[in-house]
């Protein structure tokens, strides 16, 4: 979060975030304190259960998805032999949370935001999954450590550059980042599905968004950049460098590009990224053929 505020400040020439504490390092703390101090407001008519479940169902999968990411050779919580699928399946539950949150808030902005973000989430899930299938084909396994092992000599980004690009863009869309952040388009929908949320629950959404960003970036680092593989430095450091590079890429995109319209987004998903991901699948097959 800190980094994001920094970068956004740098790019948009804002002052604040660089002056809270030395080099603005305390900005995050200030943000959190501010959030927790805020009153937890719940609209009177909102459905209590759905209102509470919404943020939880967005945050929990994001946190859970870290379980299968190899932070460095031995640093992985669970090296499931279906780890890659796990990473695709578990964050999928987020869509339920977004819908619930939008619905429960009992207000049209939130409702529209919830519907939009879920629709977007599901549409972009398809090309993203297909791209990951390509990687799994090359690795010949769904186990994270096997995927890493397969990239010992050549990281997959060199074999599947198209897949890498599609993955990055669809990930951006899935976690609702600009230029794909229609669901929370500040100018038209106030803040989208979390308009009515405040304080602690809002912080959960915040956490979910950044958790998903880091998880997805870490996943990309493993799938395409070889994760902890690298000379000299320990694996953990390599992994962190690669992940942060992708995170930085994301933030850079966020603060420089304008936003798409909702229908443009859908068209993009189905007419551009889906075919591209299929092409990537064919390419993966060809690469596999060439290697063997």
């Amino acid at each position, binding site marked *: 979060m800190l980094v994001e505020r920094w970068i956004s400040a740098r790019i948009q020439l804002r002052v604040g975030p660089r002056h809270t504490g030395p080099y603005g390092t305390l900005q995050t703390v200030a943000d959190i304190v501010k959030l927790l101090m805020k009153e937890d407001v719940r609209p009177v008519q909102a459905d209590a*259960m759905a209102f509470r479940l919404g943020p939880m169902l967005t945050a929990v999968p994001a946190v859970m998805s870290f379980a299968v990411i190899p932070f460095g050779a031995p640093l992985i919580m669970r090296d499931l032999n279906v780890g890659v*699928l796990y990473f695709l*399946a578990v964050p999928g*539950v987020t869509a339920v949370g977004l*819908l619930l949150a939008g619905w429960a808030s009992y207000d049209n902005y939130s409702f529209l935001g919830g519907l939009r973000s879920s629709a977007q989430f599901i549409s972009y*899930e398809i090309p993203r999954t297909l791209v990951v299938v390509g990687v799994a084909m090359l690795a010949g396994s769904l186990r994270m450590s096997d995927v890493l092992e397969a990239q010992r000599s050549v990281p997959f980004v060199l074999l599947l550059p198209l897949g890498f690009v599609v993955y990055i863009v669809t990930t951006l869309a899935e976690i609702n980042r600009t230029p794909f952040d229609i669901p929370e388009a500040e100018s038209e929908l106030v803040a989208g599905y979390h308009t009515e949320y405040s304080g602690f629950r809002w912080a959960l959404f915040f956490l979910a968004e950044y958790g998903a960003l880091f998880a997805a970036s870490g996943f990309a680092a493993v799938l395409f950049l070889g994760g902890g593989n690298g000379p000299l430095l320990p694996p953990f450091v390599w992994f962190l460098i690669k992940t942060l590079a992708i995170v930085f890429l994301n933030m850079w995109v966020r603060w420089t590009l304008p936003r798409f319209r909702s229908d443009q987004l859908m068209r993009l998903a189905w007419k551009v990224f889906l075919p591209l991901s299929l092409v990537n699948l064919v390419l993966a097959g060809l690469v596999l053929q060439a290697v063997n």
Partner: protein
Amino acid sequence: MGGGQAVLFVVMGVAAAVSALYAVLTRQLLRSIMALGAFLTAVAVEFYVLSADFVSLVQIFVYVGGVVVLMLFALMLSASGERHPMAGADRAGLGAVLAYLVGGVLAVTALRADLPEPGAFPEQTVSYLGRALLAEQLFAFELMGVILLAALVTALVVVRKERQ
């Protein structure tokens, strides 16, 4: 199944049964769908305990991330007027009796069934599943593709017809 696994199995079994019952009984559609989500997750954990890790994740991926979301969409698009959509009047009686009867028969059959104990199970289900799908079950796998196409076309036709 080891001791811990057995405990997990029982806990998740109870969770599945309770959430299924709640999904069926509650009069609020939204809660019914959410209970279905909880039920499906519990069943997915049961799959994992029964050494079907791939099926377990497919369950989460397709059911929770797909079917439940679809149901929520349908609910929200159809009930935008009323914020707490309720299921209408029910008729119990004969149906309930029939359901209990069937459940009883099944349970008795299960208790009396004379089945062999499960032997060793392969660690890596994925590679075996892949092999099965491309050999013994190849035809079923391909047929599944055709069915998905059929479902897609059917749903589209149903919705599009209405718009005209």
